[in-house]
């Protein structure tokens, strides 16, 4: 018994090693940037880091829940832009904000339901189902709704846009509040609800969860609808801040990879079953600090890509050195 307990503890230590390394790299970067970069270690810059990371954190909440359930949602960024587009069209047509939001939420829930139905009932692999729905959503919105337009501009004088991009209290932006709310809801879903226990069980061993009678299909619906709503929140925050809904965010593809990177780097393995809100925060912290520091140092976009790649490789190599693969960790999709 004692032996089993010590083995479990050793396993947990190994699992936490990547998180520790990522936290260590983040702290090291914060120290280096604070010393080297003028203006990094200020409260104002901390606020900028928070506001620039808001949409990434919210998207990562959706992706984390999906990945923990052993799924993958490649339609997340497409849904984000589709949600922002729907809301923008409604408010540009002078529809009351509450009604516009309600209709948009309804539309995004439908997309989440469609994804979940394809995965849970038609039993198409999540990656293929969400890839197809991403293409469908982008195509439908760009050509049927926007008639070929790539960009939709929002007026910053619109009350809804002002509310979403402004401050709730002095020094506390709405985007930061939405971000914290998303983290809390994710925490509650994963740790405080029955669905959360099923999500972990599905990620740990999907067949065992199904055979023991857990409601895997309805939980899959919860997971993908939650992801769609998270994507909508991220889309509203991002488009209100920049004053534009830009379909190149989907077609460029970098944001989707960044979201998956944040989740995995934070310590949530692609095979699911593990992780939580803390892992999202850890993953985003590294990417956000790195991006902010390099922007302050006036690095070109190409140089930023090189350095971001280098830091990530260092983190992964360090993890491999301290946490060599064994039969337990050597699974498809694991770092």
């Amino acid at each position, binding site marked *: 018994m004692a032996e089993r307990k010590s083995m479990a503890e050793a396993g947990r230590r190994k699992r936490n090693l990547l998180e520790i390394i990522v936290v260590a790299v983040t702290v090291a970067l914060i120290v280096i940037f604070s010393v080297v*970069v*003028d*203006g*990094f270690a*200020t409260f*104002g*810059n901390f*606020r*900028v880091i928070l*506001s*620039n990371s808001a949409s990434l954190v919210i998207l990562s909440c959706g992706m984390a829940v999906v990945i923990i359930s052993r799924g993958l949602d490649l339609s997340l960024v497409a849904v984000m832009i589709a949600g922002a587009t729907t809301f923008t069209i409604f408010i540009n047509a002078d529809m009351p904000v509450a009604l516009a939001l309600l209709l948009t939420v309804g539309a995004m829930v439908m997309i989440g339901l469609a994804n979940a139905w394809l995965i849970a009932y038609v039993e198409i692999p999540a990656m293929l189902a969400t890839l197809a729905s991403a293409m469908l959503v982008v195509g439908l919105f*760009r050509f049927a709704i*926007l008639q*070929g*337009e*790539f*960009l939709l*501009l929002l*007026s*910053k*004088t619109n009350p809804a846009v002002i509310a979403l*991009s*402004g401050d709730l209290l002095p020094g506390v932006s709405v985007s930061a509040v939405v971000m914290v709310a998303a983290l809390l809801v994710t925490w509650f879903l994963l740790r405080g609800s029955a669905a959360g226990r099923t999500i972990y069980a599905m990620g740990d061993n999907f067949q065992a969860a199904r055979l023991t009678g857990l409601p895997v299909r309805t939980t899959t619906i919860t997971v993908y609808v939650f992801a769609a709503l998270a994507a909508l929140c991220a889309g509203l925050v*991002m488009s209100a*801040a*920049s*004053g*534009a809904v*830009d*379909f*190149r*965010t989907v*077609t*460029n593809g970098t944001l989707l990879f960044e979201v998956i990177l944040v989740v995995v780097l934070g310590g949530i393995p692609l095979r699911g079953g593990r992780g939580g809100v803390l892992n999202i925060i850890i993953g985003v912290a590294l990417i956000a600090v790195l*991006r*902010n520091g390099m*922007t*302050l140092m*006036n*690095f*070109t*976009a*190409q140089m930023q890509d090189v350095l971001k790649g280098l830091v990530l490789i260092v983190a992964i190599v360090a993890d491999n050195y301290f946490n060599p693969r064994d039969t337990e960790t050597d699974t498809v999709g694991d770092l």
Partner: protein
Amino acid sequence: MLSSLGIKIRGAASSAIVGACVLLGGSGHASADVDISGKKVIFVPIAMGISLTEGWARRMREHADIHGYTLDIRDAAFNTGAMSELLAKAITEKPDVLVVHNPTVQLLARQIKQAESEGIKVLQVNLQSNQASSAFVGANWERIGREIAEDIVKECGEGSGKSGKVSIIPGQLTAADSVIMNEAAFKVFEAHPEIEVVSNQASDWEPEKARQITATVLQQHPDLCAVFGHWDVHTMGAGNAVKDAGLADDVLVYATGGGDDVACKAVEDKVLDRVWSYDADGQGRDVGTMVDLLLQGASGADGAMMEVESPMKIIKAGDSYDPDLCWKM
């Protein structure tokens, strides 16, 4: 070099275009000595769905309808890989004129050379490649970069009482407009050591990236004097960052663009302060006219590239603001 070459032949090309316009304007119907009906023109833009290319396409279609030639548009949808493939496919179809919108100075250079060597006349629109071709219609980026830089020096330089700090937001560092505008602007700034470029980071033409860069730079340099964005659409993201920081009255936001009504709205909303517009609607007409001329066999002296420079309209906030400077689709 291209610029000086352009200056030499600009007069000749402009005269030819004016002549063609007189011909077209003389009767309600198109007429030309050379029958160009049935000819084939392919246009490969970086992307449709933006006012710039939609504005060009609208005028090009009008010319195609008047003269009875076909105009096929192959939308690369901001995908440079797809753009090379679309251009390769277009070359195999042997059109009479190929209209190309270069995303970078290098990307399509080899294919432009190949098309010209196969007898296809290539007209480059607004963004030039390193490779010369039969014709170019577009903005004089050197002039825009220089004029905006000079305006920044006037507003932020010696005697202005401002910090002299400038943030530049190119679209892509290798895009023709960004390369030329940056070169021209830095040449002006070099003569004015009081001007300090504190940031020069590309936004990939995305408003959100421009917003994030600007929000970060403003934290480090709250006394920033000006933002120079290389395209009005992504610069609106930067302008919104300035506005959200409560610095709209302190930081001047400069941009360039096609000058549609969205640009004027941005100036009215104090998201942008000054826009150097190359008037995409007028450019569309110039492109259509140049296609007509190429189809009629026009060519530059000694095979030199014919060049038409788009006239500039400067849209400024303040007393001189005139919404009629912008066009509407």
